[in-house]
Each structure stands twice: as structure tokens, then as C-alpha cells.
């Protein structure tokens, strides 16, 4: 473990660490643009200049290019190094446009931060600036090439990391241009990360254009709910509107990036059609009234149709806290069915694949990236869980062989098509991973896990908390709603964020729904209580590997200020609850209902073996369920 002295601080680091990373380890910030922890070193921007006072190399060196060696003495404050960094910023400012006020990156711009840090101020160049024309890269990403400082991060990410081929760098000298070779929209399903990667405002989020500034953002660590992978995100909100979603680093899961689907699918939260007011028989009411009515209807249904006539229905998108309270509610209402799944097929396949993951055989995305042999069997990662495809590419870049069973599968790397998993030399691999889908019914994985002890499994589940739903269904003896309704005994359904098709609801006299989306079920319900979306509450979900992750509240629920007043101004009113802000997390509504029915308050959904999830840190790498 080589040791070096940086600014009089001694640091010991792992072999291969660069001087820049060693400095970051002791909180010494060194300005940099082209270096990125996920993309490695380039040496293009020359902004990370430091002075090597002693050691195998001497003089001004680029700290991002130098691996640490014993005996190095580094100074980041040496006058020559400081002057070098100031000159780099001066050079970058020669052509940089005067558009900070109208640029979305302002406030979260690495160039702004490092310009102040470098101490460059007065412009000494009196010539003219080079300009570029922009391209229309699609509905998600805004292109403004004048701002480019040519750090080459975008092309290195897009071509090397994400495997895209339609975007790159053209030209030479000061005329280099980063854009699509032909006009059109960006093709890569990971193109949204260009917004996070670009240190200036060349690539900005078009969907959140001109909405707010970084210092006004409401942000909190959260988890994407687009698929079962549970990539870590930081949603951004302002004025009660979810503006955009940015990636959050989690080495074990998504690394530094997220897919476009997770990044740009925030419209459901701001949807003006979102149901926000409690309804009783179509009439707006207060939460108390609605809960009262709900408790009454439950009692009525029990009276009319006997015990076992109520079905409590959760879903695989319901957060864990609420899912954990459903059994208690089922018991109190003498429910005939506790359902975590609507469809029997989904219940059966999810539960059977869950059984394969209980012994710590699940592969995290990090383990996929570090694998040496990957088999994709009977699923399409790029469609169903895009970040898995990106992880497979990283493994391929490091020399792994990728095999695909199935037709019509596209991956952002080369692979060998095989007819069946048996054709793959799994025994020769040290860290093989099998990627399959829960909805594809094959019993291959079980046998393979027995055969190869080092094999790990990555299962693509249908929704964000499928694992949690299946786990609880197994523990509590949950059945599918399909089966329960087919038995004919169910006369009342309490749906908690479930998507129940119309044909199952037909003939059910009493339907109550808790949800944050306008679904068929909500439309058919007699009693409706609004719940919060994932960005409006603290919650927990379990991803496809059985990793429980906490997401935190980003914003308060309520109608976005935009559009409230046709004249455009926010209203001159004083209230304690914003308009449309009656929603509360599903588990809290359930707790109130349970308290109303049983007389006992519920304060904490995590009890028993789930206790360890109580204070779960959103910034951690989560807790593996099989460890509980």
C-alpha cells in the first residue's frame, strides 16, 4: 500500500490509486474536469495540476494521471501549481460564452466552482470567441455547444461506457464538436447521463429547462421506482413540482448512472389528473370522514356477507411500510384473502424465483460488472431492466464473455448466441452470473445453482417492490386476487396502490382504494383516499437482489404552483395545507384505519424481524433481506 505526503498530510492508499483520488480521500479538493471516477483518467483538461516536490517524478504533474508511489511529496498550494490552474481556467474562459444567467447549469456547474477556486477574474484576451451551432438531440437533452470546455467526458461516457455509436467528437483544434454524426435523436437508452456527466451546461435536462436554480432545489436521497433494480436517485423538486431526477452514486447497485426510463419518467407525479382529495361515493370529503366511512363500510360488508368476504389487496409497487401493515388490517377485518398480487401468474413466478435468491445467491449490479462470464437467458435486459445491460457491458469491457439465450435480444456489447444455457462453460468461470426474468417460467436456474456453487443469479422482477411483496406473501400466506375472486366469497376489496383490472372488480359491491395514481381501481372505488408518491414520503423498497433501500421525502404533496392561477402568479393566500395536499403515505392512512377499527394506535410498521430496517440510512448500500 503506497504512502505519500500531500500538503503535509500522510495518506496510505491502495495500489493503483491516483494522486487525485488520494487527495480526495483526505478532503483536499483538486479541480478537475476530464477525470471521472467511472470513466477513469484522460489527461485532457490539465486542471488537476499539482507540484511534486519529492519522489520519482518532480515538478508540475497532473494528479489524475499519476499513480501513487512511495516517497511522493505533493503540494497543491505551490504557487506554480496554483498559477497553472489559474491559467487553465483563463484558457477555458477565452471561448466560454457569457451566458451563466440563462444557463441551467448555473449553481450546479463544475466550471463555475473551479473558476472561483482557481482565482481567475479579469479577462486579458481581447479577441473573439468561437461559436457553434446546436443540434436537436431529442426531447430530453438540450444541446448548447458554445459552452463546451472540451473535457471529452461525454464522448468517453457515450462510446466507451455506454456503447453508443451515434454520438461522438468531430473536428480538431479549437473547432472540436461533440454531437451526433447525423441529425436526429440520441439513440442510447442511457443518454440522459450526459446531463450529469457534463461539467458545464452543454447537455442539460430539457424537461426541467429554466425551472429552478440549484440553491432552491428540494432534494433528498431516493430510489427509482421504474423497475425492480432500485437504482439510487436524487429527485429534484421546486414549487411542489417534481422537476427532474438525477443519478445518485451507489457502488453496489447502479454505480454512478441511471437509465433514461428512470430519469425522465416523472410526469406521473405532476399529472394534473392525479387524485388528491378523499372521496366518499364520488363526493369530496375530508380524510377523517373518508376513514369513518371506510370503517363503517367494512363493518357493513362483514355483516351482510359474513366473515372472509373482504380482500385486502397490496401490490408489488407498494412501499414496504404499507405492505407490512396489510396483514394486521386483514386480521382486523377478518379478511378472506390477503393479496400482494392481483395476477396468479405474477404471484407464482415471483414467489418461485424468490426462493432461488434466499441463500445469498443474488448478484448485485456491481457483481455483474465484475463478472467474468454472463448468461442472459429468456429476458431482454435492455427493455426490462436497462441498467443490467449497462452492467453487462462493463463486464464485457473488462474481458468477460457474454452469452445470450433467445432471439431478438440487443445488448450494448458483443455476445455469443447459444441455444441453451447448457452450452455455456459455466464451470470454467470464476464469477459467473445468470440473468433471467421472473416472468419467464423456466426451472433452469434452480438446477444450475446446485451444479455451480459460484454462480450468482440476477432476476428481473416486474416492479420496484416485487421482492418485498413476494416475501410477505410467502410469510403471511398471501393468495392472488384472481384466485380469491374466483372463489366467489369476496364481496369487498380494499386496494392499496394495486392495479386491479375491471373484470375482477365487476360484481364486487364494495371497493375502496388508496392510491396516488388515477387507475381503473380508483375510478371504480366508492371510497378513495389519496396516498403520496414515492418522492413525497420516506419509505423502503426491496430491489431484485433482496436489498432493502430507504428513500426519503423530497417534496410535500400538493398541486404544483404552476397553473394554479391562470394569470400566472402564485396565490396570495395563507394556508397550513397546500391545495391538493391531503395525501399522506399509504402506511400512515392504514395505521389510522387500523387504529379506528381496533382502537390500538400503530406507530411503527417495522417490528419483529423487520426491526433492523427502522433507522435505515438512505445513504448506505441498503440491507440484504436474507441477512435479517
Amino acid at each position, binding site marked *: 500500500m503506497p504512502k505519500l505526503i500531500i500538503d503535509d498530510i500522510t495518506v496510505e492508499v491502495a495500489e493503483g490509486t491516483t494522486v487525485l483520488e488520494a487527495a480526495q480521500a483526505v478532503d483536499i479538493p483538486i479541480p478537475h474536469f476530464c477525470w471521472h471516477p467511472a470513466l477513469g483518467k484522460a489527461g485532457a483538461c490539465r486542471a488537476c495540476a499539482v507540484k511534486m516536490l519529492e519522489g520519482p517524478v518532480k515538478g508540475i504533474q497532473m494528479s489524475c494521471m499519476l499513480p501513487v508511489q512511495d516517497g511522493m511529496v505533493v503540494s497543491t498550494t505551490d504557487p506554480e501549481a496554483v498559477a497553472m490552474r489559474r491559467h487553465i481556467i483563463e484558457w477555458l474562459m477565452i471561448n466560454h*460564452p*457569457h*451566458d*451563466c*444567467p*440563462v444557463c441551467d447549469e*448555473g*449553481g450546479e456547474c463544475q466550471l463555475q466552482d473551479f473558476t472561483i477556486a482557481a482565482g481567475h477574474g479579469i479577462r486579458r484576451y481581447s479577441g*473573439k*470567441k*468561437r*461559436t*457553434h*451551432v446546436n443540434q436537436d438531440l431529442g426531447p430530453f437533452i438540450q444541446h*448548447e455547444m*458554445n459552452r463546451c470546455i472540451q473535457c471529452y467526458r461525454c464522448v468517453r461516457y457515450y462510446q466507451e461506457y455506454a456503447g453508443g455509436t451515434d454520438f461522438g467528437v*468531430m*473536428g480538431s*483544434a479549437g*473547432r472540436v*464538436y461533440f*454531437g451526433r454524426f447525423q441529425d436526429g435523436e440520441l439513440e442510447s437508452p442511457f443518454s440522459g447521463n450526459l446531463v450529469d456527466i457534463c461539467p458545464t451546461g452543454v447537455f442539460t435536462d430539457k424537461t426541467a*429547462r*429554466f*425551472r*429552478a*436554480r440549484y*440553491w*432552491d432545489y428540494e432534494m433528498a436521497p431516493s430510489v427509482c421506482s421504474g423497475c425492480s433494480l432500485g437504482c439510487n436517485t436524487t429527485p429534484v423538486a421546486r*414549487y411542489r413540482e417534481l422537476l427532474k431526477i438525477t443519478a445518485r452514486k451507489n457502488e453496489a447497485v447502479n454505480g454512478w448512472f441511471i437509465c433514461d426510463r428512470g430519469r425522465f419518467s416523472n410526469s406521473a407525479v405532476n399529472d394534473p389528473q392525479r387524485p388528491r382529495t378523499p372521496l366518499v361515493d364520488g363526493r369530496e370529503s375530508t380524510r377523517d370522514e373518508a376513514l369513518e366511512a371506510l370503517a363503517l363500510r367494512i363493518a357493513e360488508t362483514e355483516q351482510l356477507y359474513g366473515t372472509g368476504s373482504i380482500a385486502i389487496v397490496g401490490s408489488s409497487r407498494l412501499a414496504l411500510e404499507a405492505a407490512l401493515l396489510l396483514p394486521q388490517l386483514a386480521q382486523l377485518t377478518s379478511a378472506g384473502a390477503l393479496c400482494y398480487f392481483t395476477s396468479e401468474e405474477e404471484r407464482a413466478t415471483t414467489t418461485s424465483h424468490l426462493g432461488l435468491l434466499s441463500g445469498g445467491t443474488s448478484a448485485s449490479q456491481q457483481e455483474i460488472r465484475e463478472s467474468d462470464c454472463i448468461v442472459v437467458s429468456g429476458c431482454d435486459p435492455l427493455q426490462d431492466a436497462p441498467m443490467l445491460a449497462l452492467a453487462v457491458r462493463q463486464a464485457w469491457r473488462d474481458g468477460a464473455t457474454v452469452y445470450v439465450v433467445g432471439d431478438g435480444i440487443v445488448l450494448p456489447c458483443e455476445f455469443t448466441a447459444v441455444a441453451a444455457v447448457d452450452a455455456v462453460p459455466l464451470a470454467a468461470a470464476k464469477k459467473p452470473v445468470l440473468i433471467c426474468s421472473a416472468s419467464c417460467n423456466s426451472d433452469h436456474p434452480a438446477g444450475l445453482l446446485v451444479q455451480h456453487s459460484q454462480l450468482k443469479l440476477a432476476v428481473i422482477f416486474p416492479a420496484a417492490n416485487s421482492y418485498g411483496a413476494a416475501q410477505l406473501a410467502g410469510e403471511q400466506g398471501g393468495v392472488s386476487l384472481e384466485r380469491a375472486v374466483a372463489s366467489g366469497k369476496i364481496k369487498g376489496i380494499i386496494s392499496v396502490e394495486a392495479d386491479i383490472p375491471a373484470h375482477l372488480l365487476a360484481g364486487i359491491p364494495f371497493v375502496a382504494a388508496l392510491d396516488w395514481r388515477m387507475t381503473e381501481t380508483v375510478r371504480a372505488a366508492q371510497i378513495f383516499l389519496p396516498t403520496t408518491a414515492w418522492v413525497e414520503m420516506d419509505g423502503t423498497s426491496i430491489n431484485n437482489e433482496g436489498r432493502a433501500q430507504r428513500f426519503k421525502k423530497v417534496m410535500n404533496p400538493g398541486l404544483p404552483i*404552476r397553473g394554479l392561477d391562470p394569470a*400566472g*402568479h*402564485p396565490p*396570495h393566500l395563507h394556508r397550513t395545507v397546500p391545495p391538493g395536499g391531503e395525501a399522506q403515505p399509504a402506511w400512515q392512512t392504514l395505521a389510522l384505519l387500523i387504529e379506528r377499527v381496533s382502537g390500538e394506535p400503530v406507530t411503527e410498521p417495522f417490528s419483529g424481524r423487520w426491526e433492523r430496517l427502522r433507522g435505515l440510512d438512505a445513504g448506505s448500500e441498503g440491507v440484504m433481506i436474507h441477512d435479517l
Partner: protein
Amino acid sequence: MKILSDIAALVTGMWITWKHIFRRPVTIQYPEEKRTPYPRYRARIVLTRDPDGGERCVACQLCSGACPVDCITMQSAEDKDGRRYAEWFRINFSRCIFCGFCAEACPTLAIQMTPDFEICKRDIMDLVYEKEDLLIDGCGKSPDYNYYRHAGIGVTQPRGSGAEEKPPVDVRGLLP
């Protein structure tokens, strides 16, 4: 003797008061007499226009960020020509301390302070000024500056024709 020094102190005080009876008062009888503040006096805030008649305010949120009492809020928007402007702009003058940080922070010289201090209202909610109450037709204190001529995003002139710009690079060209 103490009583003598006490009397002396009393007499000194009363002498100063007596002296001031014959001095010219500095009080002016407002509102019949009014003092005109200097042009740089910091009172009512306005949003100015540029010499070409467009709104200067690009809703960059810098004044809002600089304001020590958070009395400025706004929403930025983009018009059909790509020009960034304020969809709505609100200053709560009951919070404003007239420090001038907003005018100092503004990069387009849009928000400026005028010497108009007579803005009292009976109802405090009348002190919340919207954009139509703040926008004036003139250039305020800076008659020459149009930010968009220097911005580099080509709103008031074609790309590459701004004040310090070369024409756009032809990526497919081979000439230097």
C-alpha cells in the same frame, strides 16, 4: 462642594437646551416640504428594459439568491424565440430591507433601485408587487446595455454575430 458641582451640571445642560432654541431646525415639514434623494438612493425596486425595448430580466434567480430576507421569488420561462424571461416575478416589499444586494447581483442590469420611497400601504398584502407593478418602460440607470447581445445564445442576433463572437464553426469543413 458637591452641591455646587451638581448645580453646575444642571446649568450646563439647560444652557445647551437654551442654545438650541435659537438654532435653525433640521426637521423639514414633510409632506409639505420634500427632500429629493440622490439618484443612488435605495428605495423602490424596478425591473428595467434594454435599449431595444425587450425585458432585461432573464429570471436567472441571482437576485432571489442574493436577497438576505428572501423577499424575491420568480419563475423562469422561455418564449418562442428562445428568450428567457420571468413568467412571474414577485417582490414582497414588506420583507424588503432595501439593501441593494439584488441590484448588485443582477448580471443584466435589470433590477435597479429608484429613489421613490413613498410606497406605504394600509394593507400589508398590497405591498406584494408582481411583475406588472415592477416593470418600467425605460432603461433605468444604464442606457446602453443589452445582455442578449453578449450572451452567446443568439436570441437578439443570429448565432455567431454577437458582440465578441466569430461566425459558427463548420464542423464538416477542413479549412482551419
